[in-house]
């Protein structure tokens, strides 16, 4: 099954089981239903689905108002960029509501436009920026495993959070992945364990890390693979314990922000671990970064593998 179809299936199941739920947003049950994200949603009689006017700021506030009256809701949004209009509520209204640990759920789920063909006003690709402004729980869905875990635990549960999905991955076929570890908050996932390197992926970069893991395996190198699905604050112990074993890290962060989640991790890791190799892959934003383009992160897999092999061989007796 494809990435977007799988997420849609998970949402359908969750919302069909909920009582007094309001699903709202522009075109959530019309047209393509946000490219298929909200297609064929069915809710109980005591719930409702509203195709709303175009008023993102108001829609954010409505979710919090519903929360105050103990009604859970999900605001589906076509693009993360549109959420900029609602920042007042994400910060100021949420700060009022969060004091009393509300029993209702409010989730804003949006598509992160992490391919650049939609141009310069659709180039905001960092979920973490939104989360950090008011320490809002946020989750990036990057594969089948984290989709199951995050939607299962967080789509409808007390409190407020944001869930971002990748437009770049919409039509990717999902493969089964092993899950070695997932923390209680569903913010940190470990998929593989290996002694030759630790790969840590941030924002929506998991697919790059998975590809690197596969190519390393083809060269008889076993790497641990982690994905960080939420921004800080997060406890890094699980990853740091692994890095202390491998002494080699590859950090991948596909965000265009100046405020990268991986920087917090690196600060802790460099402080606590003696490293033989560190490869940090961030975006190099050239003069054309706002022009329409694929927005893919350019990874030279062969060069990364070579670097890791060199340090691996240095370790051998």
């Amino acid at each position, binding site marked *: 099954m494809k990435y977007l179809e799988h997420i849609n299936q998970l949402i359908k199941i969750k919302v069909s089981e909920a009582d007094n739920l309001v699903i709202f947003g522009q075109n959530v049950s019309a047209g393509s239903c946000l490219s298929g994200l909200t297609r064929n949603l069915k809710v109980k009689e005591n719930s409702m689905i509203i195709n709303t006017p175009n008023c993102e700021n108001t829609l954010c506030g*409505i979710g*919090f*108002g*519903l929360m*105050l*009256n103990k*009604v859970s809701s999900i605001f589906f949004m076509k693009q993360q960029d549109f959420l900029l209009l609602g920042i007042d509520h994400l910060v100021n209204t949420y700060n*009022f509501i969060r004091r009393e640990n509300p029993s209702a759920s409010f989730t804003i789920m949006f598509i992160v436009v992490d391919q650049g063909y939609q141009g310069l006003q659709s180039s905001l690709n960092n979920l973490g920026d939104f989360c950090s402004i008011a320490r809002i729980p946020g989750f990036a869905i990057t594969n089948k495993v984290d989709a199951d875990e995050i939607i299962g635990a967080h789509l409808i549960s007390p409190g407020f959070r944001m869930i971002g999905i990748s437009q770049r991955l919409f039509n990717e076929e999902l493969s089964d992945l092993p899950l070695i570890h997932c923390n209680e908050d569903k913010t940190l996932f470990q998929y593989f364990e290996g002694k030759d390197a630790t790969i840590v992926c941030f924002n929506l970069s998991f697919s790059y890390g998975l590809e690197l893991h596969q190519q390393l395996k083809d060269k008889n190198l076993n790497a641990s693979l982690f994905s960080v699905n939420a921004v800080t604050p997060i406890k890094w112990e699980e990853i740091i314990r692994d890095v202390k074993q491998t002494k080699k890290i590859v950090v991948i962060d596909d965000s265009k922000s100046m405020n990268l989640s991986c920087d917090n991790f690196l600060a802790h890791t460099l402080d606590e671990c003696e490293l033989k190799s560190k490869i940090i892959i961030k975006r190099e934003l050239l003069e054309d970064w706002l022009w329409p383009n694929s927005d893919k992160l350019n990874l030279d897999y062969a060069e990364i593998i070579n670097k890791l092999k060199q340090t691996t061989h240095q370790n051998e007796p």
Partner: protein
Amino acid sequence: MDSHINTPAFSLFNVEYNLLIAEELLRLRLSQMIINEKIKNKEFKIPIHLALGHEAIAFSVEASMEPADQLVLPHRNLHYNLAREKSLKPIVEEFLLKETGLAKSQLGSMNLANKEKGIVYTSSILGNNLSVATGLALGKKVRKENGIVLVVLGDGAMEEGSLYENLVFLRSNQLPSLVIIENNQWSLATKIEERRCGIDLKKFADSLGIKFEKLVGNDPYQYFSRLKELKEYSMSNNLPVCIEVELATLGYWHVNTEGYAPPGRFINYHAGAAPTVNLLEWPLIEESTDDPLFVLKKYFDENQLRKISAKVLLSLQEELL
């Protein structure tokens, strides 16, 4: 005149109730004057926006509310909080950031809410509270709950796009609600004509199919009576109502300090102390209908009002001991 008020509302109530209404207006005024003295004495660290002159609408909103109703307020909210809480001490203690304060010192002044008394949300951000009120109204619809949401904003907030967005949403989803705009003409230090073109709220509301009403004159008896009717209209038709209240925020002064500004320059009261307002047994500030206490003189002998006022002041002072 857009006002539809022509009911001789005073005669609708009995004598005792009319007196209670007068007493309540005096309590709202004197409570604010006591707080004003404390601001002058620099007893508070937080910013406080007095609402001297707003007592008639605050009383009327409070009196028209049923237990299932919910009130959503802006940063200038003291008059509504005093009206709903019926007590001065917890509010003063909140402003002093004491644990015994109304919100246990968590909210201060500009976000002061009181869930137990139906004030469920208060925002210091202009226009922010409208969409939360809309969400509350939608929540009532989903849960099939009784009651109505009343949201208050000022003429500054009505310039925000939020008013447009929310009236459209409220009307589109048939959500009963009262959107009450306190129009004191000022936003910080600029009058409406200094900052923008005119906004014809009636035409605006009409264009959306929303009932509009303008309340003028600070008559608590008429306001109360009319608000009750508008609430009934809103609930029975599942429609929002937009209400503009013409009022003045009293406590302005004229500069007389050389070097600060041209002497004689008018300064509109916005926040903090109202330096020219002093706590007196008879707390009338203005001899015009801009002052709701002046309006009371239409119905009562001034000596009678002065006696009530002295009694109320004594009671408030004892409360704070």
